[in-house]
């Protein structure tokens, strides 16, 4: 009798645990493009990616991987999160190199140029956009949480967020999602990216820029936020240890004085250490600021075409990426560029209306 | 005892005081009934019911109340 009750209790406990996991799986932050992008990436064939782009929206708006594949046969995939903070760059890289062995990792300087999040909510959201797209039971996820915790501790700001249980049991944070407008479980089933990581938006992708602040040019060397410097050094020592080929890049955008000054600092620092570091300005010979950008930090599709055109050539010349067209492993890339172009037409038509 | 049952019957005619033994414990009598009972008993028997006597056991049944009355009369 006693044993029966014990077995029953154990079964019950296991079921409750399974329920919690199911709920965590159902109500998670994954109807977001970053999550879809990662999901698609994780399903690619092993060792089929030649180069990896790691960073923020300053990458996924710019790089049309499918175009580079179509035209050069290279497989270059962006793993990006909106405003990916410096403290999750290592776990993100670890996640991205689990099944792939890219020849080069292109790192977005925007992750290191920014300010420390101005309040705890912002900090929390920045961190969780990255943490919560990582697999529930992965070490990279725990590392991302640990790094976030470390950052909070090192930052010593008054309004610091607290790492609570909701970072681990995401359900605590997201169970209220059903309240949102247009909520449906279909959307939660974690669909894949249809555009091989290229960011598509019904209006932004095809809109011109309405208003912008012109770049402030400066020769100043403005120091990074201490924490960005800290995580940059951590990142460098990790990639050195792993013997990864790394290059840094800032995609074209207008800049504030602070950003420009920090980019100067970064360029000096990284070049001295022997890294390739491209800080790209808006080259008037290539881009038209008003029609190729949808805001001062991001290109639209037309700008992305121009950027990809240029950067694909750059990669080909500098890193000898193979031509993979026709390779069985790379079937996923086939025809995606056409899908993108068709979708752009749809957006253009609806915008014209 | 007869006299007591008569007094109780006047206060709550809906209760059979000869049978009930958990008048207070089961909430058959509320505090206002107790007030009325105490006030009646004080008058009819000319006794002083003190706060120490206000226990559930003393009011749970007619029998218990009767015993309480006798005890108080005896002590006086």
């Amino acid at each position, binding site marked *: 009798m006693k044993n029966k009750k014990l077995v029953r209790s154990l079964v019950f406990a296991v079921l409750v645990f399974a329920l919690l996991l199911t709920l965590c799986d159902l109500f998670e932050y994954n109807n977001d493009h970053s999550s879809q992008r990662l999901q698609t990436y994780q399903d690619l064939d092993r060792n089929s990616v030649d180069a990896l782009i790691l960073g923020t929206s300053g990458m996924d708006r710019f790089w049309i991987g499918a175009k580079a594949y179509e035209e050069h046969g290279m497989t270059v995939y962006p793993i990006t999160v909106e405003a990916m903070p410096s403290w999750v760059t290592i776990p993100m890289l670890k996640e991205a190199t689990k099944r792939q062995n890219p020849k080069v990792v292109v790192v977005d300087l925007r992750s290191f140029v920014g300010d420390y999040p101005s309040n705890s909510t912002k900090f929390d959201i920045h961190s969780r956009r990255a943490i919560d797209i990582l697999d529930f039971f992965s070490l990279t996820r725990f590392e991302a949480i640990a790094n976030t915790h470390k950052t909070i501790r090192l930052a010593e700001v008054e309004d610091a967020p607290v790492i609570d249980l909701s970072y681990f049991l995401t359900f*605590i944070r997201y*169970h209220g999602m*059903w309240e949102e407008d247009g909520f449906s479980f279909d959307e939660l089933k974690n669909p894949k990216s249809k555009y091989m990581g290229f960011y598509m938006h019904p209006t932004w992708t095809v809109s011109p820029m309405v208003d912008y602040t012109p770049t402030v040019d400066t020769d100043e060397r403005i120091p990074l936020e201490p924490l960005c410097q800290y995580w940059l050094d951590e990142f460098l020592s990790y990639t050195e240890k792993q013997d990864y080929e790394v290059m840094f890049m800032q995609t074209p955008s207008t800049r504030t004085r602070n950003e420009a000054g920090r980019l100067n600092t970064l360029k000096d620092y990284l070049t001295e250490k022997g890294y390739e570091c491209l800080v790209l300005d808006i080259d008037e010979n290539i881009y038209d600021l008003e029609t190729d950008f949808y805001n001062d930090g991001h290109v639209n599709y037309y700008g992305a075409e121009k950027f990809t055109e240029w950067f694909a050539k750059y990669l080909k010349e500098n890193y000898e990426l193979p031509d993979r067209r026709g390779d069985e492993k790379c079937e996923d890339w086939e025809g995606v560029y056409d899908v993108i172009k068709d979708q752009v037409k749809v957006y253009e038509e609806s915008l014209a209306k | 005892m007869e006299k007591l049952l008569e007094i109780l019957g006047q206060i709550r005619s809906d209760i059979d005081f000869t049978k009930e033994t958990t008048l207070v414990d089961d909430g058959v009598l509320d505090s*206002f009934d107790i007030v*009325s009972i105490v006030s009646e008993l*004080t*008058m009819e028997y000319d006794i002083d019911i003190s*706060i120490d006597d206000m226990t559930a056991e003393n009011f749970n049944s007619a029998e218990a109340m009767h015993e309480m009355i006798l005890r108080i009369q005896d002590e006086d």
Partner: protein
Amino acid sequence: MAYTSLGFLGFLGLVILVYYLVPKKYQWAVLLTASYIFYLFSGVAQLAFILGTTVVTYVSALLMQKKRDAYKAELAAIGPDITREKKQELKKTAGNKIRRVQFASVIAVLLVLAVVKYLNFAIESTNTIFNVFNIDAYLSPVEKMIVPLGISFYSFQAMGYLIDIGRGRYAAEKHFGRLALFLSFFPTIVQGPINRYGDLGAQFNKEHSFDYDNLKFGAQLMLWGFFKKMVIADRAAPAVAAIFGSNYADYNGSVYFFGMLMYVLQIYCDFSGGIDIARGAAQTLGFNLPQNFERPYFSTSVADYWRRWHATLGAWMREYVFYPVMLSKPLTKISKALRKSGKAKLAKLVPSVVTPFVVFFLIGIWHGANWKYVAFGLYNATIVAGSVALAPVFKKAIEKLHINTEAFSWKLFTIVRTFLVLGISKILVKSPGLKAALHIIKSIFTEVDLDFVFGLDGKIFSLGIDEKNMFVLFVAVLILLGVSVLQENGMKMRETLSKQNIVFRWAVYFIALIFVLVFGIYGPAYDAADFIYGAY
């Protein structure tokens, strides 16, 4: 640490584990340690207050016990030949000695409570009086008064215990640890129930072996409490805050009526849900705490309501205020005098009418140091005393009108009537002030906004509860209502459930669990409001 926090669940789990693993004779020590750790979460300075009260209570009770023992020893020494006069004399002197200690110790406990909770109220009231009489004086209120966690609850338990010992109801606790545990027991410290030593103390002296049913039933009761608190109360809360928190003239009577319904729902589910969690937690440790709520909104009269709502406070008031006042010399004298002059009916009526005013005045200020709570108490007292005084008139009217009081329709009428009377009393409490309360009550009876009532303007969803949440709230209230009706008809939910077959049973558990997990309001996005009764 809030009872609805994951921290509390973890804490309880740990306590349960340690509690059942240690040798049984140390179980009390585990609970005492746990209770003081729990208490420490609210602050170190607060600990001094509860410790002080505990020491005073412990020492005074032992002192009273000593005097009682001495009296008994003296009686025994004299033997059975004692004269009645001698016996009475001894009893009187012993009684006086005990009463002195009893009085002093109760006052000491009460004084701390009064200073902490009511000093500023008294100061402000005095200032108002100065003002009224044009006296040029001002007393400044004490800033940053520490209000220790659960001070009302443990002080009331301490006073009850001291009075009981003085009355000789049971022997004083010799074990300091057990008494300290009685006053600090962590499931009861935040919001009761208010325990009597005769019930709870005996359970501390018992050894508790692990019991599967206790753990199961306890967890079920806690889940039910979480449902009431997190799914219903916290969901209704924004509407209450929106309607009663703002400028009261902004809304019409129908909105206020809706607000009243939401508040009545919120406060019941918040408080009784918290009590369910407390009782459930205690049950997992093998303790049986008294019921504090018995479906109060099914009451057929206000007096009935006060037996069902916060019943342990009602019982405390009956035991230590109602009966003593009723049996007090002035009242009995008045009664006797009236009877002698032939006014028997009036003689009976006086205590029944005067006593409620004393009791409800205290219940009023128990809820808060503010004149609106006094008004709340007096309102209740008037209705209770009035219904006692007018009982014969009502009886005649019912007979004349040939109303069948056994019929369901009559019962329903009395329930609805009582509910409305109570709803109004709650507006007195919830409104920003007395003046606002009167305005709101008036508008409920004078303004009807049909657009709002029929939901034509959609305004109902703009008051802090949107359509989806309103739907969830509606379903949850239906569940609550269904369960309450079954309970009211004598069904013991947990026992009945445990007799069903396992598939049905587990289905119920999991649906309940999912409901609370998905629709409960908790987590970082919503900072679950502290229990409304937490500060009392």
